[in-house]
């Protein structure tokens, strides 16, 4: 065994004390001592096993920490922006000119002691005490503003708090107590656009339902529970109402008596100094009470919040997560997928195969795609960051090129140009004598057709992913979100079809000259209608009709494909397809509303 030679480390029964071994592992002792202990550890099996056991336990604890903490919860993507926003506001408050900054108490006392004689010190302290006493008595006895004026000032508080922030959103966290039930929720209010939503922070379903039913019983909007303007209106409308004010500690309590209303009495607590409403106690006609307490109040810029916050009337996501798990929200891959698709739709990243959903692994939503540049990639990745199960694999074109062999691209070549003339070449020349105008027109038509095709493709993809059997098993909220997405895509498609119709009307001529659909075609239409048992089938028909129409349009105005057909035949078919597309999309939208 090595001889221990150190001033600090002492052997006990031939071994290093456990505390020294632990400190050595943690590098918490001087380098010399550390060397001594390590040398001893090399030669002493018993001490080495203590060190090994310590390291092993630490490793297990690290793993334990990883399981319990990572990566269950991530900070919100906008946390840095929110923090900097708060920091700037705090800096603004600290820097405000003329702000009285309290000196350090010890410094103040030292200055007083040095400046004043002992007798003068006593006199100064006595004078100060008298002033403070007068101030306290005067302040508590004399009301400075009336009850109604206090409420008006409370209304004005929010207006003032919005200043200096672009697109301000009020983020207010409140707790509602109704009987023995309690619910905590975060309200997001956009006063400029008069919209609001709330997220439920933590409540079980029963509590939540009860609290909501109580709020409804009080004829209140769940998103406007602490708005003083609401109570001011109630008081103005009810001629028999009375309003009074009393002090509760430093805060003021405005009591409004509303005989005949669902809320008979409302007591609003206004914060001392700025009259901000921080609580309300509502007594309902049936003797029940609702207590609302503000937990926090912030005004942040809209950009700091997640995209699409105001898209749904009320966010129930947090509530569902809290229900499924108090520690680690277990996200549902299907709802995450739909949420991802909705986000991609909002940033126009779902079109034309730019992004596709890979379902090889059902436990994660893998989203792959190729985008133009790094900025777009970053935009997509940051938009999806909130979704825990979504794994974006987005690469830029440059990265894709690097990863592929050069010849793949070399061999591809450009899209082959057609030498054939368009079937409506003559009409095009007559209508647009200048080549540039003609090209501009063709580009315009093709742009509408491509855009419509993209939306139809997305709808078709959604219909394939959410087959009728799978659709029927979706949770009601998830289904609502999917319907919302489908309706949005259908609306965009319908707008593109309308635009396309306007464009081609100028060159295809009036519809009246076209032959009406014959009885066989009408019969075909009826038969097809009967076969469309669900929205998925309807989407397939829309997609295939749009493909056919694009082929026709290519032949008519570009000169690609189907040269054997006559221009009249194709014109007639195009109009028929346009008409049936418009009808089918309308029917699809109608069907969606009923779902």
């Amino acid at each position, binding site marked *: 065994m090595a001889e221990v030679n150190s001033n600090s480390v002492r052997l006990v029964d031939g071994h290093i004390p*456990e*505390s020294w071994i*632990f*400190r050595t592992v*943690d590098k*918490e002792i001087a380098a010399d001592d550390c060397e001594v202990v390590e040398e001893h550890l090399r030669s002493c099996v018993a001490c080495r096993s203590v060190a090994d*056991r*310590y390291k*092993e*336990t*630490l490793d*297990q*604890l*690290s793993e*334990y*920490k990883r*399981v*319990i*903490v*990572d990566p*269950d*919860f991530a*900070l*919100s993507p906008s*946390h*840095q922006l*929110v*923090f*900097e926003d*708060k*920091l700037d506001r*705090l*800096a603004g408050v*600290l*820097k405000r000119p003329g702000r009285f*900054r309290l000196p350090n108490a010890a410094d103040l006392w030292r200055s007083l002691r040095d400046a004043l004689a002992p007798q003068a010190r006593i006199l100064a302290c006595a004078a100060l005490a008298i002033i403070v006493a007068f101030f306290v008595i005067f302040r508590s006895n004399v009301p400075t503003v009336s009850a109604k004026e206090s409420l008006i000032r409370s209304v004005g508080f929010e207006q003032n708090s919005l200043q200096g922030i672009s697109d301000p959103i009020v983020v207010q966290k409140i707790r509602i107590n109704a009987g023995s039930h309690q619910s905590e929720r*975060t309200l997001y209010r956009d006063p400029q656009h008069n919209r609001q939503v709330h997220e439920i*922070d*933590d409540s079980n379903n029963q509590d939540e339902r009860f609290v909501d039913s109580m709020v409804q019983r009080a004829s209140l909007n769940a998103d406007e529970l602490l708005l003083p303007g609401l109570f001011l209106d109630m008081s103005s409308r009810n001629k028999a109402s009375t309003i009074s004010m009393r002090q509760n500690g430093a805060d003021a309590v405005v009591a409004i008596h509303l005989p005949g209303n669902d809320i008979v009495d409302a007591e609003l607590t206004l914060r001392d100094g700025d009259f901000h409403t921080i609580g309300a106690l509502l007594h309902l006609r049936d003797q029940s009470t609702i207590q609302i307490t503000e937990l*926090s109040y912030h005004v942040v810029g809209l950009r700091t919040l997640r995209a699409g916050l105001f898209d749904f009337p009320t966010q129930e996501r947090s509530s569902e997560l809290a229900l499924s*798990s*108090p*520690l*680690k929200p*277990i996200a549902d891959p299907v709802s995450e997928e739909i949420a991802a698709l909705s986000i991609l739709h909002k940033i126009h990243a779902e079109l034309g195969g730019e992004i596709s959903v890979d379902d090889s692994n059902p436990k994660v939503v893998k989203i792959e795609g190729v985008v133009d540049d790094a900025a777009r990639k970053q935009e997509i990745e940051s938009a999806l960051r909130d979704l825990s199960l979504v794994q974006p694999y987005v690469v830029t074109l440059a990265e894709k090129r690097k990863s592929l062999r050069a010849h793949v691209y070399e061999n591809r070549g450009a899209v082959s140009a057609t030498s054939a003339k368009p079937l409506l070449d003559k009409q095009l020349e007559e209508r647009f004598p200048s080549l540039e105008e003609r090209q501009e027109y063709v580009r315009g038509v093709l742009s509408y057709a491509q855009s419509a095709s993209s939306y139809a493709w997305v709808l078709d993809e959604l219909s394939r992913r959410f087959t009728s059997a799978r659709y029927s098993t979706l949770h009601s909220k998830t289904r609502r979100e999917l319907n919302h997405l489908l309706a949005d895509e259908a609306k965009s498609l319908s707008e593109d079809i309308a635009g396309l119709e306007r464009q081609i009307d100028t060159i295809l001529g009036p519809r009246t000259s076209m032959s009406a659909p014959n009885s066989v075609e009408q019969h075909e239409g009826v038969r097809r209608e009967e076969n469309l048992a669900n929205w998925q089938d309807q989407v397939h028909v829309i997609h295939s009709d749009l493909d056919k129409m694009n082929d026709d349009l290519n032949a008519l105005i570009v000169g690609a494909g189907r040269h054997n057909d006559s221009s009249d035949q194709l014109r007639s078919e195009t109009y028929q397809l346009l008409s049936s597309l418009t009808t089918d999309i309308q029917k699809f939208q109608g069907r969606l509303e009923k779902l």
Partner: protein
Amino acid sequence: MSDCEQSYAVASDNLRTSQDISDDIRMARVRDTVTGLYEQLHQPVYRYLLWMRVRPQEAEEILQEAFLRLFSHLYADRPNVNMKAWVYRVAHNLACARGRKQKFILETSPERWHEICLSAIDSSAGPEEALLYKERWERLHSRVMKLSQLQQNCVRLRLEGLRYQEIAETLNTSVSSVAGSLRHAINKLCENL
């Protein structure tokens, strides 16, 4: 000295030499210091708060509040401190204050812990191996829960990479108390593991 510690030292020096400069420049320096520290420490402090079983949303608020207080502290020319330990201490105290009200702390139910164990098990493991793995996790969890509050906090902060001195400052105790708590905690945890 690690990169992180070096950057704290540089930040402290910057603030120390900023006594005679204008208020605007001083504020800008304090702001830079605080945002720099936030970038470095937000993840570990957040994880620490989550491990204290503070709800994620509350943890984010506490995290930001701690750094805002650091900003006020530094701007008010208060004595320079070990900022890392200071932030941990303020975050820890804020979390404890909220915890005392019993409103913000997550409780891990046995069912929930069962789910966590299952999610941590490697999917390729056989049933017997998975059972052993689960039992080991449950044993470790129950032992961690039986540690005193000080021991749990010392272990958490040690795993966040804090030095004994920093842990002592965070928990407002002495270095020897930290060392002792860690030793007792490890001895309790590794029994029959």
